């Protein structure tokens, strides 16, 4: 929820910086879609803090299962995955198929465009907001 509020503020600021027009361009639309898709994650995740699932700040470029302060499943810690757009896309499509034994009991995001949008949102949040949180 905290992350979602921050996300809305960021998007609003970006629209203002582009000349005050309320109509979002394609990139903004993708971010808005990504923020909406991210609502599916907030039952367990936050950008900034570990909850039932690990935080998402610092995710991009990190080796899976290595953020300090969160107890990962052995399956994810041993997966060898490094998180980037490609690996996130494959994982989010079907987490339990990609990493059997993960504790992320979530069927996945079936729509490729929804996955692209939420990955764009995560990358954006990591660039613009996280400020070193999560390494």
């Amino acid at each position, binding site marked *: 929820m905290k992350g979602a509020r921050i996300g809305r503020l960021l998007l609003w600021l970006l629209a203002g910086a582009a000349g005050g027009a309320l109509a979002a361009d394609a990139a903004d639309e993708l971010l808005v879609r990504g923020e909406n898709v991210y609502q599916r*994650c907030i039952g367990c995740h936050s950008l900034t803090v570990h909850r039932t699932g690990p935080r998402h700040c610092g995710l991009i470029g990190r080796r899976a299962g290595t953020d300090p302060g969160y107890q990962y499943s052995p399956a994810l810690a041993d997966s060898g995955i490094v998180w980037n757009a490609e690996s996130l896309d494959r994982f989010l499509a079907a987490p339990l198929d990609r990493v059997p034994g993960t504790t992320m009991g979530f069927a996945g995001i079936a729509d490729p465009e929804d996955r692209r949008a939420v990955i764009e949102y995560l990358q954006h949040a990591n660039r613009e907001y996280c400020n070193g949180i999560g390494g």
Partner: protein
Amino acid sequence: MRHKQFHSAFQNSRRRFLQTTAGTTLSAAGVAVVSGLGLSSALADVGDADVQKDIRILNTAVAAEHEAVAAYQLGADSGLLTKAVAPTAIAFQSHHKQHVDALAGAVRKLGGQPAEPKAEYAFPVDKLESERDVLEFAAGLERGAVSAYAGAIPLFADRTLSGAAASILADEAMHWAVLRQVLGLDPVPGAFFS
């Protein structure tokens, strides 16, 4: 003036919120019974790998339910909830406690060890300055829980557990709708949720 109008609308919604509390509690009791019956037969003949997978999914839900219990306790202890609202928040917390009990019971029946609550939760305490903040925070958690259960239901090897999870999803969706109503938002903002 706009503030007064908003305040009045908020109070009216809150009154309706309270008028529905007794009915909501009775409904939740019914849901708990159904969940209990479902979980009591949750030892279907599935393979060990599938049992372990079901235990992991259940325990993720147990952990999230523990967080919800703690979040409502934070709200109750905050001093921000009025006497008119606090009993309903406590009723919702009670539902989450029942979810913990039911899910943890299923984990034990499958031979697992239920997840324990965390010693501490990193809630955005500094952002909670009013009753509305607390209710928005609770609504966000409930909305997230709906998605979490929607994502978990297709995964259980034992389909009885899928049914139990669906009954919990329904309860938490009702929480979310009631909280949105009180906040002056469309209580049911769409036909589908994922």
